[in-house]
């Protein structure tokens, strides 16, 4: 865009801005940086950017009005008003001058037409550019499209254009005194030749007949039959012969034929409405299909395949997984169609499809996914479903790079589903140096379950990072599997992990839990657990094991002696509580027996346990 004069203050070159206004301009440009930053980060209707925009615009428009416009020169890292530096980029994060400069903008100007609406459009444009919204990579193109009232800019191209002398074409040609005649070798002027052959009767007749133009248009100088083959190849069918003397002349025929009718207005509307529906993705996919299906030369076919791969990669980079997936679907369709005509080309498509799931390709998608939290897990899963087991390693690889939780979940779901037969590939993640990759692999392995997966999970039990060990517990707990593995974490050095393991165990199915608790109780480290944990474990054991637990618990009570210590007393009391939770007949008999004991304390504990048991079993006495 070339800066328009009406945007400029009438006499800006001599118009000296008062120092206080210069300072205000400088402050405004600093505020502009902040405002662009805030506007870019926050949603449009958030009160913070709205307020900032309003206050900035008010001050800025006042200054423009007071100064009758503003013309700012852009340098690499500074902005000048006349010869004064009014803004200098302070950091790389907020490069106002650089943003314009790198886009090739050398001047920006604001006229008195610049108003609040203009400011809003300006900020919207800058936001699109700063956030690199789709198709918003070129600031100059964006500003042009935005058509901001009262704002204009000048680019390097404009400057070149100003200096670009279209007239050089004139200099190249040989101007002579006659002005528009080429110098012929003979030096003779050929102007009169033009009139030599125009004395045909047709001219005269037509002039008399119509009173308008002659019927000789296109004749004389041109041969209408030239390149007949070319015309045919271009799709032109032979036109009727030129009109003779008795027919109206060509110009009149054309004049009538090309007059617009009232109904043409509807056609324009229909075209505009139809064109507004143009879907760039759909049309690109259709185009790629048309191209590949029209190929009959192996080199061209390969070339087209490379083109398709390039386009597909671009869609991936933009995070357009649905479209990228559709391109792959189409390749599968094309592969099917080629089975009869070019079976040898099918392999190339298969190779291309495999390549689409390669590490290199899938890594392309990561930045886009991290940029776009709006992409759903279903979309990601749906895209990954295009790939076979060959992609499992690459998919596992990207797992650690994804920033959004729901994206990681989706990949985990995919790997859990697709990796069941290829656990060795997926389990590589367990040995990754990054804790979060290990954690994700743990999730997947826990989802898959089975002996092989459990063997890899065992390796994760000793991982340095507690978050990995916690994930083992969570993963297994969710799937109600691997209680024995969780039980091992009951002895973890980290209390949070121990606690989580214990809680997870209690949520497990009866059988899984019983085995696990039995192992814990039988472990020599059982006594090292907290008393509450031990008591809970004994109670759970008693509940789950039923009459099988009675003998074991009775043993704690019968160990009573004169020199009974505090620990033994704890176990005695815990054993009674555990028996109180045991609904077997055998437990009741044991408790009744102790209820008649000569030992007052045993009687009291047994009575209390019986009461609790009845409460549990019958809801009261």
């Amino acid at each position, binding site marked *: 865009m070339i800066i328009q004069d009406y945007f400029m203050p009438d006499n800006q070159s001599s118009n000296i801005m008062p120092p206080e206004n210069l300072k205000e301009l400088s402050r405004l440009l600093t505020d502009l940086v902040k405002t662009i930053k805030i506007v870019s980060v926050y949603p449009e209707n958030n009160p913070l950017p709205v307020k900032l925009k309003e206050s900035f615009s008010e001050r800025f428009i006042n200054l423009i009005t007071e100064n009758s416009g503003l013309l700012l020169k852009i340098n690499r890292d500074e902005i000048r008003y006349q010869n004064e530096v009014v803004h200098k980029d302070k950091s790389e994060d907020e490069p106002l001058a650089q943003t314009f400069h790198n886009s090739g903008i050398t001047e920006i100007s604001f006229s008195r*037409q610049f108003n609040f609406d203009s400011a809003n459009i300006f900020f919207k444009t800058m936001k699109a550019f700063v956030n690199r919204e789709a198709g918003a990579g070129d600031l100059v193109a964006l500003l042009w499209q935005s058509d901001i009232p009262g704002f204009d800019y000048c680019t390097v*191209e404009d400057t070149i254009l100003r200096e670009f002398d279209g007239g050089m074409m*004139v200099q190249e040609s040989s101007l002579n005194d006659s002005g528009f005649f080429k110098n012929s070798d003979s030096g003779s002027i050929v102007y009169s030749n033009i009139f030599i052959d125009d004395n045909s009767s047709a001219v005269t007749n037509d002039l008399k007949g119509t009173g308008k133009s002659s019927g000789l248009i296109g004749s004389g100088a041109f041969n209408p039959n030239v390149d007949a083959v070319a015309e045919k190849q271009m*799709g032109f069918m032979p036109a009727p012969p030129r009109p003779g003397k008795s027919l109206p002349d060509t110009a009149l025929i054309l004049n009538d034929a090309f007059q617009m009718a009232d109904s043409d207005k509807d056609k324009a509307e229909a075209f505009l409405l139809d064109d507004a529906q143009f879907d760039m993705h759909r049309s690109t996919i259709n185009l790629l299909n048309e191209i590949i299906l029209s190929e009959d030369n192996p080199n061209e076919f390969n070339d087209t395949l490379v*083109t398709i791969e390039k386009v597909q990669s671009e869609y991936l980079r933009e995070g357009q997984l649905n479209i990228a997936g559709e391109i792959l679907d189409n390749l599968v369709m094309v592969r099917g169609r080629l089975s009869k005509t070019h079976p040898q080309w099918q392999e190339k498509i298969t190779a291309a499809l495999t390549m689409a799931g390669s590490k290199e390709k899938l890594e392309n998608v990561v930045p886009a996914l991290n940029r776009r939290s709006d992409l759903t897990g279903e979309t990601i899963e749906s895209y990954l479903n295009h790939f076979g087991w060959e992609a499992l390693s690459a998919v596992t690889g990207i797992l650690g790079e994804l920033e959004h939780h729901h994206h990681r979940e989706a990949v985990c779901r995919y790997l859990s589903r697709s990796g069941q037969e290829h656990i060795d590939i997926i389990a590589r993640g367990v040995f990754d140096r990054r804790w979060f990759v290990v954690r994700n692999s743990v999730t997947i392995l826990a989802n898959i379950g089975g002996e092989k997966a459990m063997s890899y999970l065992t390796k994760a039990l000793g991982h340095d990072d507690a978050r990995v060990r916690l994930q083992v517990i969570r993963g297994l707990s969710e799937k109600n599997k691997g209680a024995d593995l969780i039980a091992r974490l009951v002895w973890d050095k980290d209390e949070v992990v121990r606690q989580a393991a214990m809680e997870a165990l209690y949520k497990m199915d009866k059988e899984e839990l019983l085995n696990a608790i039995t192992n814990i109780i039988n472990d020599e480290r059982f006594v090292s657990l907290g008393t509450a944990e031990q008591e809970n474990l004994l109670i759970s054991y008693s509940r789950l094991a039923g009459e099988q637990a009675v003998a074991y618990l009775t043993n704690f009570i019968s160990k009573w002696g004169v020199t009974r210590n505090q620990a033994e007393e704890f176990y005695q009391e815990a054993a009674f509580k555990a028996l109180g939770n045991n609904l077997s007949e055998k437990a009741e008999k044991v408790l009744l027996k102790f209820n008649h004991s000569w030992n007052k304390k045993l009687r009291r504990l047994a009575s209390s346990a019986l009461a609790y048991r009845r409460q549990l079993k019958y809801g009261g006495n």
Partner: protein
Amino acid sequence: MEPVRLEKERLEMAGREEHEMINLLFILFKTAQYVDANNSGYLTQSAKYCVAFRRMADAQGKISIKVIDGRIFVCDKLVRFDSDGMVRAKSITDQWHQLGIGGIVFDDSLDNRQIDKFVHLLATLKINESNREQVVQRLIDLGIEGVTLLAVEDNSHKPILTEERRVLLRRTARANFFRAISVVEDVMVRAAQDKEIDLGKAKRVVHSLIDQLTEDETSLIELTSIRDFDEYTYAHSTNVCVYALTIGVRLGLDKNRLSQLGFSALFHDIGKIKLPGDLIRKPDAYDENDWLQMQRHPILGAKTILRNMRHDYHTARAAVTAFEHHINEDLTGYPVLRKKESTNLFSKIIAIADSFDAMSSGRVYIKKAISPDEVLRKMMYQMTVKFDAFILKLFVNIIGIYPAGTLLLLSTDELAVVAANNAGDLSRPQVRILGNRSGPYAQPININLSLGENDNRKIIRIIDPAQYNIDIKNIILSDKYI
């Protein structure tokens, strides 16, 4: 050289206020055509319009709305509509036109009640039974004093550009045109080397052409008549771009789509860069094998665009257009479509622009130029089969039967170059008379052949500059012949 700047006299583009005011007025007109003045919907629209009107009137005094050559100006600023707005505006201004009204000037003293009365009067008139004079009388009867109705004639003969301004615009047009050629060349050379292409330059040059066309399309169209730039298709591509954009502007495409159309046109033939140089440069007529090769260029073009340019709306459109621009309206042509669906609007436009330029320039396929009228005659006979009839009509209505830059011999033994087309009479353009049998005039004479005063000057025939050793480049490029 003086820097080329579009300065004070530049055709100003309407701002947001003008857009808002005119859109609200047209909505109000539409509403008034269906409901009476007491309807709540009408009252809401009326209130909105009056606020916008008052704001503008307070700032600018009188508000003028003029329809000139189908374009709408508010306070002498050109208004660009989106597609919906354009449809609405056109249906209303067409009615005005039928009444003989070429524009309306509102006085700032006009109050809300008078606005309502006026809008209802105009919206409910029986168009076929009324004319401007009757409307003026009705305004007087109703006591509406602040509205002046301009006659269609007032605007149609009013020059938009001064001659001084036109000189400036022609210079800018030249700079933009040649810059476009050089950008096409840059891009094609990079494409030939299979390098990635920066689209920024190309988009910007298209934007410059659009800016230029919005104000003055003639200066660019006449540059398309220069035919001898290159053996490849750089100038041809630029010509097609200019033609396509003029059609797009008339069709009412918004800025964004115009940008995509221009870009598509600029690179519709990019596939030719992948063809053997010998084929492109071949001086003789193509044989069957040559044609088979040549017919690969749409596919090669689409692939080149998809492969060497970053994928976005511009390139997606350009790829489709490159692929489809030789597919006919009846879906014959090449490449052969697997899925028989109508071609894209851009492809229809570019197919017409491309065929016209290719045949009239005599460089691309046809080895000898055909006169523009003969090309149009050939194209006319292909309407509906090869080309979309409506777009072809639109195209001819823009460039005329004798496009700007065409050399003509007149019945007065004068040599003239076409300056601009007359939409009302495509066979009688505006011309610049360069000289007569005795030699060139010291200063060219500008005349409009469609005016009665020039009835003595008939067009005898088109002159092929090459045949008579006339350097059309000098005529078109030199300021002397403006």
